[in-house]
Structures are given as structure tokens and as C-alpha cells.
């Protein structure tokens, strides 16, 4: 039996109104569901809307339209107490551990902020013992509690951010590029920690990243975004071994492999794209990828392909895939 769906968005749209009546469709008709204990990797190049998608999904940005369901309930129907409870269950970890922690607060106060807001302790002693427990969970010690953020390295700061998120016992975490600001040797530390915590606490993750190798490592399912839309979504190994959408194919073929012989092979079989990502402002009724697509057909310029299941839960938005 499959686990229950923790988090689901249906036809989520986030459009930003610009000057002179222009519209930027940062997130355009995105749907996905994440089951308990799973990780959905959301990948794409900068500006494709993956961060906006994550933020709109948990309600940091107000959505333009669509539905957001947490454990099957529409979050727009939540009132006061329910909303507070929801915000406790959903937490976020940010990319930049230097910008996302207040430099004037001690580590203890940062970690306990969620506890304070939701009044999750009876007295000061209990507050501190909870803080120490959380710090231990992320491999820091109680000694660190009284210090300020500037005394820590990037990896340690990211772990403080994780402790802060875990303080309120969330069920669902949005990880927005949690490791891209860190050094290689530190990335592995943080990723291992995230994966262990997931196992121990039964957490569910939305992992937003551009590092495809890391996404493959951590995710159970992967969604590829291009210009505000999901163009392909499948189980991780299926997506990496059998990519269908021409954008996914070219994206995967562009990733360098740390092995000279394998890298030589990759370069020979690489699918190089023409041009760069177009501006997502005022898109017409065409496939957003068709101007760079190596296998475009006449229909691609006249209609937007919809995301269809080509079997086994492998979803692709491409006219060519739909035909075969």
C-alpha cells in the first residue's frame, strides 16, 4: 500500500503583473503530489520558476489560482487555529545560510523562535532543554547555543537552519537549494543529515535544486521545470535513465561527469541546445521550449503541450511524445 499524500498542488499558477500590462507567468499550471516519507526533486535552470513554485506552494506568495492541499485539505479554507497548525507542520530551509539567520540573535533564540511563537514549552528550562536536543540532532553541541551566527561556518549555519525548522516538529519541508552555497566536502555532510532525519522522523521533502547529480541521489521522484511549467516528471531512476522530453535529454547530457573517460563519452553524445532561455514574459500559445528544440514540429508553434502519462507514472509535456 502506498503512503498517504502529504502535500499536493493542483493547477497552481503564480503570475506577476509587470508594468504596461505585461504578465510574467513564473509558475503556470503546475500539479504534483508528494507522499509521506518521499522526496520530490524539483529541478531546472535559473529563472525557470522552481523557487517561486516552492514558495507559492506553501503559501509564502499568494497564488494566482489553483489548489494547494495539505493532507487532502485545501489550505485556503484554513482559518486561525488551523492555519497556525499548518504553518507548524510545513517548514522551509533556504539557500543562503548567511542571509537566512538573524545576526543579532543567539543560536538558542534562533532555534527556539518557532517554539516561542507556538508556545511549545512550559518553562525556560524546558525551552533550553529542547534547544539542546535540537542542536544535538544536527551535530552541534549545547556550547554553541549562546553564540552568534557569525561565529559559524556555512555548513554549521545551514545545520542551525535545519534545527530551527525541525523545532516545531514539521511533517513537510521545502528545501530551497539547501546545499548550493556550500563546499563539496560540506554538501555531503548536510545531505546525509537530511536523509537520516527523513528516515528517523518520517519527513517529506520538496527538494529544489539545480545540481542534478545531488537530486538523483536524494529524490524518490523528480520534476523538471522549464519556463514555469513542469515538462517531465517520473520516478528518479526512470527519469535519469529514460528521459523523453528533449529539454530533459539535453539538460542531462550537459552535466559533466567527474571521470575523464566517461566525460569524453558524454561530450561526444551531448545534445547541445541552440540559444539561451527566452524571457518568460508574455508567452504566446506555443510550446515554451519549441524555439530551442532540436526535434520541433509544426504543431509545437501553435499549441501548448499538456502533461500526459506515457505509462508507469512517467509524465511528459511534449507533442512528439504524445504522438508515439
Amino acid at each position, binding site marked *: 500500500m502506498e503512503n498517504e499524500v502529504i502535500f499536493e498542488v493542483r493547477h497552481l499558477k503564480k503570475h506577476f503583473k509587470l508594468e504596461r500590462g505585461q504578465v510574467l507567468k513564473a509558475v503556470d499550471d503546475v500539479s504534483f503530489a508528494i507522499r509521506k516519507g518521499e522526496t520530490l526533486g524539483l529541478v531546472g535552470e535559473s529563472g525557470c520558476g522552481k523557487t517561486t513554485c516552492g514558495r507559492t506552494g506553501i503559501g509564502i506568495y499568494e497564488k494566482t489560482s489553483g489548489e494547494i492541499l495539505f493532507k487532502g485539505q485545501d489550505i485556503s479554507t484554513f482559518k486561525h487555529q488551523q492555519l497556525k497548525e499548518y504553518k507548524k507542520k510545513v517548514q522551509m530551509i533556504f539557500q543562503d545560510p548567511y542571509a537566512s539567520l538573524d545576526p543579532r540573535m543567539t543560536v538558542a533564540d534562533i532555534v527556539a523562535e518557532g517554539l516561542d511563537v507556538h508556545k511549545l514549552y512550559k518553562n525556560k528550562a524546558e525551552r533550553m532543554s529542547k534547544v539542546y536536543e535540537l542542536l544535538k540532532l544536527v551535530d552541534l553541541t549545547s556550547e554553541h547555543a549562546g553564540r552568534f551566527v557569525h561565529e559559524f561556518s556555512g555548513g554549521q549555519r545551514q545545520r542551525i537552519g535545519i534545527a530551527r525548522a525541525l523545532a516545531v516538529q514539521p511533517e513537510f519541508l521545502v528545501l530551497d537549494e539547501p546545499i548550493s552555497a556550500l563546499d563539496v566536502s560540506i554538501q555531503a555532510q548536510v545531505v546525509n543529515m537530511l*536523509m537520516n532525519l527523513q528516515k528517523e522522523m518520517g519527513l517529506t521533502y520538496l527538494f529544489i535544486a*539545480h545540481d542534478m547529480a545531488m537530486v538523483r541521489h536524494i529524490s524518490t521522484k523528480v520534476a523538471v521545470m522549464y519556463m514555469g511549467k513542469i515538462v517531465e516528471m517520473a520516478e528518479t531512476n526512470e527519469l535519469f535513465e529514460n528521459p523523453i522530453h528533449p529539454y530533459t535529454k539535453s539538460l542531462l547530457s550537459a552535466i*559533466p561527469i567527474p571521470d575523464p573517460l566517461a566525460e569524453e563519452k558524454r561530450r561526444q553524445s551531448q545534445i*547541445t541546445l541552440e540559444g539561451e532561455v527566452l524571457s518568460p514574459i508574455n508567452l504566446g500559445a506555443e510550446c515554451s521550449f519549441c524555439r530551442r528544440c532540436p526535434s520541433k514540429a509544426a504543431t509545437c508553434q501553435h499549441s501548448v503541450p499538456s502533461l500526459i502519462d506515457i505509462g508507469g507514472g512517467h509524465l511528459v509535456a511534449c507533442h512528439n511524445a504524445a504522438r508515439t
Partner: protein
Amino acid sequence: MANELLKVEDLKVDYHTYAGIVQAVRGVSFSLEKGKTLAIVGESGCGKSVTARSILKLIHEPGQIDKSSKILFEGKDVNSFSAKELQSYRGGDVSIIFQDAMASLNPTMTVGKQIVENILHHNKMKKTDAKKRAVELLSLVGITDPERRYKQYPHELSGGMRQRVMIAIAFANNPKLLIADEPTTALDVTIQSQIMELLRSLKNEYGSSIILITHDLGVVAGIADEVAVMYAGVIVEHGSAKDIFYNPKHPYTKALHEAVPRVDNKRSDTLVSIAGSPPDLINPNPGCPFSSRCKHCMNICTKEMPPSYSFDKGHEASCWLHALDESEFK
């Protein structure tokens, strides 16, 4: 070696700060042959960028290149260059491109003018000829419609195109050596592969040597002939790309390989992480810089800096573990 283009001997760079003297580079030596590509790999703060900038004498206060350090370019000591010699050396024989192209380009000048500036500085030619050459360079680096782009400002270009402009400026005078300091770190992966392809083709066409500074082993695998792995201001291992990728001898190099997942591998359970973080360079301990994080740390590792042990042709690693191997052989 007749083909030797650059030789760096015992490079030391100190930064005099309020907190104390930061020993950013602590005795780095390497040499580079004509037409070869050397990749210097390491984490942030390991001194790889400082090493690269020292080659162009681009170290400013409070930084200081130690007087005993030697940087020989075609046999001439860069440290003793006069201001005028430095001017023709920088951007002429040796060019550099940086990670952040937007910060390196002048936002108030058209990109064409910035290329012309570098051409005219090093060559006596008419402005109109220099302009023609600049347009040629723009098309050489793969910019479509170069005449139109020539008149544009950096903010009108995308990140990938700005990096192409930087490369055009760098190649304006057919440099013998190009230093590329994290040239693709700020770019998306599809653009990164375009830029690396461009560097490869320019290298083949002009026969330039390249020193590539990066933390991405994938990028290294595609272009490097030789690799130097830096950690805490020293080169811990140096060898051909094959040595470093297939037969690494230093625990740090091995750990780096194990810490990155490969996109062509199935999901595995855990990455091998390197515990701890790099040491403080104000008061580095006298032993091996990696000792505090090393799985194989022995008593001697914390007390004495390991010497460099040689393996196959040109493959060297500084690690006490290999002292054991040697005594075993005897």
C-alpha cells in the same frame, strides 16, 4: 624543460589582517608546459584563487607575496617586473577571466569598446582595424550578430554571453596563458557546457596553456591534462588527470571523489562525507593540514608536515601514509 611556459617555486602569500597573519598560500610549486591545461582544484579558502592571481601579480594590500617566492614566466621573474613590463604582461601574454563576468566588465562602456581597449593597449593599429578585430573576436567566441552586440552594454547581455565577452577580451592578443578562475560557477549547466566547449576549441586553435581554477571535478575531467589538488594553502597532490581520477594517493583527493554523487550512478544510500571543516590559516598546526579531518590520521601527522612522495611520472602526494609504503619496500 624546453617547453616550460610557467614555473612557480615556493609561492607564499600572506594577508596581514587585524586578526593576525593569514597564510593563504604556504609554499606552492608547480610548472606548466606550453599548450597544456592545469586544473587547480580545492574548496573555498584553500588558496587556489590567490595562487592564480599571484601569477599576474594581482595581490593587493593587505596581501603580500613573499620575497623568496619565484614566479617565472618564460624564464623571467614576474616579481621583478617594472610597472611597464607588467602592463604588457597582463592581458598580453597572460589573460585572466573571473567567475562573475558582470563585476569584471565595465557597466558604462559598450562591450565592443572594452575589447578594442585591450587590443589597442597592446598593439599599434588603427582604431577601425581594432574594431574589425573586436567584431571578429565576438563571432569567434560564438556570439551571434556580433555587429549589434558590439554596441551593447554588459547589462543587455545574459550571463553566458557576458562570460563569452570576457573570453573575447582575454583572447584579444593571443595569450600564451589563460587563467580561468571559476569561469562557469555562476552559470547554468547547459551554458557551462557551451563555455567549456569554447575554451577547449580556443585552446586547440591558439595553442594557449590554461590554468583552470575550480571546485567542480566534473569540469576538470573534461579539459585538464594535469590536476593539482589544494588544501589549506598547500598542494596536497599533483599529477596527470588520469592519476588524480583513477589512482588518487592523498586521502583528501579520495574523499573529494567519494563526496560527490555522480549523475550516471543510481541512487546510493549515503555519500561519504568529510567530517569537520578546513583549518584556520592564521595559526595552522605544524602538521599535515588535513590531519584533523583525515580517517587515517597518525601521531606524526599532527606534528610534522609530510614531504612530497613521488609515484608514476610527475605524480606526487604529500601524505605520511606513503612513508610506510617506502619503508616496507626497503
